[in-house]
């Protein structure tokens, strides 16, 4: 099937059509920060300002806080009630390739050995419409991690801005279905295609931050016990955890109960390896020191995840660099590893 294109003026028509079947999420501003929020049915001004969201789209699958089940106590007996599976279909419009790739990485943990029913229900009911990142940040480094600003591998439908319109590439069957009956689309010409290639190449060339990811897992293993190095790397970290909360591949969570009188619920909430309490046991804590925790964060992404799943659990989205209050920089840490292999 030849690629299609859509005039930017017609984007809202398309979103409206999709809204009949899906909850459509688009980039929106909340307290002046970009998030993915449910589309209000008219505003498409995000096309002018959108670069990437502050909160990654992982929140649409693994919410900051969610109820696992509720329970009631009656005469000493407990009754457990499971919330009905989330069947609502969602469409995320404008997801960046790095964040879409992050979902593929998260899938590995949430399907591994035991399936996570909450995450996977949402994942299976979601369509991803990606958008080539034409204006990446200087903190971005996806091209060092087998990604690119136009990588369509993890979305259903990919859009690339070619001026007055978007080129549309249907990647999956879900993506093909999305545009099958859309009268707003035109066939893309070869001029459109070459313009898109030009835009993609230009976007990739804007990414100048690099890491050397070759053998990074081996280098980290060899540097694991180098306390001096890790202390130096961790020196300015304030253990605030924002890099993990805003990381599209960080998934760690805590499980907690709340109960008032005879009713309660069990919740899960995002948690972070940056917090000392995360691993704290009554008698001791294996990651008491800040450098233990920074090492865990870096090694989990670049050493342990590759060992367990064969991929680096970082997509180079750069959020942990640009949103860190003390300018901690994972690329500096990785590029200054003391051991070369």
């Amino acid at each position, binding site marked *: 099937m030849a690629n299609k294109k859509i005039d930017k003026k017609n984007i809202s028509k398309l979103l409206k059509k999709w809204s009949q079947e899906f909850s459509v999420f688009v980039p929106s501003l909340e307290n002046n920060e970009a998030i993915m929020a449910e589309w209000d049915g008219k505003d498409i001004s995000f096309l002018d300002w959108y670069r990437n969201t502050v909160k990654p789209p992982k929140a649409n699958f693994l919410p900051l806080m969610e109820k696992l*089940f509720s329970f009631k106590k009656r005469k000493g007996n407990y009754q457990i009630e499971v919330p009905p599976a989330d069947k609502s279909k969602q469409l995320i419009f404008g997801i960046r390739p790095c964040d879409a790739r992050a979902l593929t990485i998260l899938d590995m943990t949430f399907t591994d050995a035991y399936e996570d029913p909450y995450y996977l229900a949402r994942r299976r009911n979601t369509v991803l419409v990606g958008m080539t990142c034409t204006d990446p940040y200087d903190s971005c480094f996806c091209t060092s991690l087998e990604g690119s600003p136009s990588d369509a591998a993890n979305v259903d439908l990919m859009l690339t801005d070619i001026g007055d319109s978007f080129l549309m590439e249907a990647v999956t069957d879900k993506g093909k279905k999305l545009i099958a009956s859309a009268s707003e689309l035109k066939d893309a010409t070869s001029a459109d295609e070459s313009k898109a290639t030009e835009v993609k190449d230009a976007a990739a060339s804007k990414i100048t931050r690099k890491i050397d990811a070759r053998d990074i897992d081996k280098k980290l293993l060899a540097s694991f016990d180098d306390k001096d190095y890790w202390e130096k790397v961790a020196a300015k970290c304030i253990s605030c955890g924002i890099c993990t909360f805003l990381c599209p591949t960080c998934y760690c969570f805590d499980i907690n*109960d709340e109960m008032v009188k005879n009713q309660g619920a*069990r919740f899960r909430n995002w948690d972070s*390896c940056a917090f000392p309490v995360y691993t704290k046991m009554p*008698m001791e804590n294996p990651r008491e020191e800040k450098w233990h925790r920074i090492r865990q964060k870096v090694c989990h992404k670049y050493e342990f995840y590759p060992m367990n799943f064969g991929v680096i659990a970082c997509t180079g989205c750069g959020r942990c660099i640009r949103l860190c209050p003390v300018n901690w920089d994972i690329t500096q840490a990785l590029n200054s590893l003391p051991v070369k292999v």
Partner: protein
Amino acid sequence: MTVTDISQRKRFLAEDNIYLPHIVVIEKIIDESPGVGTFHFNFKDEKLRKEFSFEAGQFAELSVFGVGEATFCITSSPTRSDHLECAVNRVGAVTNALHRLGVGAEMGFRGPFGNSFPLELMEGKNLVFVGGGIGLAPLRSLIWYAIDNRDKYKNIDIIYGARSPADLSFKYDLESWGKDKTVNMVTTVDKGDKSWKGREGFVPTVLEQAAPSAKDAVAIVCGPPVMIRFTFPVLEKLGFTPEQMITTLEKRMKCGVGKCGRCNIGNLYVCRDGPVFSYAQIKNFISSEY
């Protein structure tokens, strides 16, 4: 041993949901030592009571509704399974709440999770159990399993210690293993009291003195991290290879099924790839992560 594929293990998930607990009812609580109680419990659901099974070394998540969940090894033996037992040390919010429960009270139960002791590796071998304090709990499941299948194993040595005589757990078991002529039992305390007539000394030291042979042997170690760290070098000195040294580890856990992230030692998750490991599996990371 290698990482076992836990997806092949028998499962008893409530409604096929990894986070949903079954309801269990407390049948008995035995005071073991200051702050430690062994909870005997059974499933409320009759069908599950009949069908449930587990293997020595596996663990469970017990919960007090409204307070939360915590991780406990199943200390009873699969060979004696008309009910389940977990030893609870009163140290945190959940364990304190568990200790406030009495016989007949309901708890949440998820499990069994994790791998188990490598029975195939141990068959036909001499077994050397090295335990410290409440760390006897996971070993106890396997010790009873080995005693109940006595012809499958050669010598059984048990070296067990605690800080003080009062801190010795499962005294009724220590007594019956001490009387069992097919078991060599050594009990020690770091510091005895007036009535203590047994041995004094730290577990690794006593192990070195007892000097069990490494030939055809497997050592199974569990205790506080500091004891585990000092026991491995002693076993190495006695000629045990890292493959012959088995341990079961405890870490802070939440999900129990490899999702929530916190219980790893290097790339291995205690809940998913353990809790039973050979020293060979973890020696790269144990020095600084445990």
